[in-house]
């Protein structure tokens, strides 16, 4: 674990890393009753090994669709996604997903929820690893609690443990902290940064919060909506570990405004709606 941290510090964000996952000309149409929805249009994206990549965009821009496709939950209409040499057409054991709202099963207690991946894969539960993870995220001793007895932050920490318990190399996170309050969210962002630095996982993190994206990411891929496209990719070279209060520093805010401007620039100006 320490080796990974040192390597990461030595490598820095800007260094060239090998490719973890490659999205090539991904196109997706959803068939709905009212016609087809063009969700992704020719999206090409490289996820580098060990990096923290944030996909940023407004609601409905197709970022979840992109992430679900990367996780093998969706078929693409056109294009392909590869994890190393393998084409992703179904869920891959090297990939774990973390969903919005923790997504714990309400009829199972914490221990049973975390054991779910092992049950589904018909493997013995790696209790040692789970215990270590539970201690790491301060959930040790809560195994017999049911999800409804836990706070939103605790639930999401449990779902992180669930995903990490099977030791995937790529974590796909779909707006995981969107439903949390601002304080808990800061806490979770710190935690996920620490976990990333300790474990050396590759993380793809979908969010609609610009500051969250900048705080967490090595690179931020900004998506535009209808149809979903990668508009721009920003390198974030802020040294790690990044403290929470970094978000109030002028240079951080400047980055936020810079990315915001690039998003606004891509939109059509509102005709006849001049604010003076």
């Amino acid at each position: 674990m320490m080796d990974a941290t040192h390597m990461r510090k030595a490598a820095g964000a800007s260094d060239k890393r090998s490719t973890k996952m490659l999205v090539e000309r991904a196109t997706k149409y959803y068939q709905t009753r009212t016609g087809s929805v063009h969700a992704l249009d020719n999206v090409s994206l490289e996820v580098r090994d060990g990096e923290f990549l944030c996909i940023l965009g407004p609601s409905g821009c197709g970022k979840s669709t992109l992430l679900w496709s990367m996780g093998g939950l969706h078929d693409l209409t056109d294009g392909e996604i590869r994890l190393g040499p393998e084409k992703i057409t179904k869920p891959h054991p090297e990939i774990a997903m973390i969903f919005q709202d923790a997504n714990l099963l309400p009829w199972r207690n914490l221990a049973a929820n975390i054991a779910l991946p092992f049950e589904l894969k018909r493997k013995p539960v790696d209790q040692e690893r789970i215990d270590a993870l539970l201690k790491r995220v301060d959930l040790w001793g809560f195994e017999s609690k049911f999800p409804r007895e836990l706070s939103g932050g605790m639930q999401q920490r449990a779902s992180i443990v669930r995903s990490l318990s099977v030791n995937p190399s790529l974590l796909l996170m779909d707006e995981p902290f969107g439903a949390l309050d601002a304080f808990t969210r800061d806490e979770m962002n710190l935690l996920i940064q620490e976990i990333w630095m300790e474990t050396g996982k590759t993380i793809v993190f979908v969010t609609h919060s610009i500051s969250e994206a900048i705080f967490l990411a090595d690179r931020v891929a900004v998506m535009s909506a209808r149809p979903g496209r990668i508009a721009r990719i920003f390198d974030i070279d802020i040294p790690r570990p990044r403290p929470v209060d970094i978000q109030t520093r002028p240079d951080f805010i400047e980055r936020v405004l810079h990315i915001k401007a690039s998003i606004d620039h891509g939109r059509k100006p509102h005709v006849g709606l001049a604010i003076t």
Partner: protein
Amino acid sequence: MAASPMWDWRLPETERMLEGGARVDKALGDKIPEFNKKKSGGGDGVGLSGASLGLGDHRTKFEILIIILVAVVIIGGSEFLLKWFGVPQYVLPTPSQIVTALFTEWKFIWPHLLVTLYELLVGFAIGASIGFVLAAVITQFPFVEKIVTPYILLLVTTPMLALVPLLILKLGFGSEPRIIAVALASGPMVMINSATGFRRVDLAKIALARSFGASTFQIFTKIRIPMAMPMIIVGLMVGSIFGLLTTVGAEMVGGAEGLGNRLTYYSALIRMPQFFAVILILAIIGISIYVLFYWIGKKWASWEA
């Protein structure tokens, strides 16, 4: 008791879910991922909470005292009033006469009780199994569901008692016609409620299981069944109560055994204490069924309440 879920067979919400809800595994590839919406329409929020008539477990001593007191007042009061006004026994016997009759007649009644319980259990087991399996299967195939639905509704709404004379003509005076009537009465109730449960698809939970490599069968056993469990239990409860009604009704219509037969027998002889003793037994059976499923619900579906 849980009247609404029995009948909201086709609500807009479930209608929307039906569309492709069957092939969900495959259909994940064609659904826009949206989580934020808490699904609250359809057959949701039914659970057992609506069916629990205050069977709470946290009673204080004071509450227990009041409950016992009210029972004493009602039973003792009716005993007193019936005697005070000199109501004849053949109109309404007093509680003490009923309980006495229950003890004195018990040796004649219990074989009939066994017959009734046997018919109820066998008929319910057959009906509930078929209903459950049908619900699980047809909710996987929306097209089949559309075809089958009218017939299920027909089964639900037709009083199966009406078929008993016909069944007796075909099958004789044994237990078989009554068992079939019980199965026909309870099965559709189990089916219709279970189907409502199975249609409550939470795409996010299925996606979760899929992301860990779950097979379609695993998704069914680990996600769909637990998720439908509250509604399945409601269905079993409603179905078994309907089964009890049909058992007794069928026994009253024809045959020479069972508690229903005793009802007609005692009322024909105007032996009212014995008649009400049988009613008391039936009430105890009904309440036991309710309590049984209440506790099953507490154990297996408490997460929803």
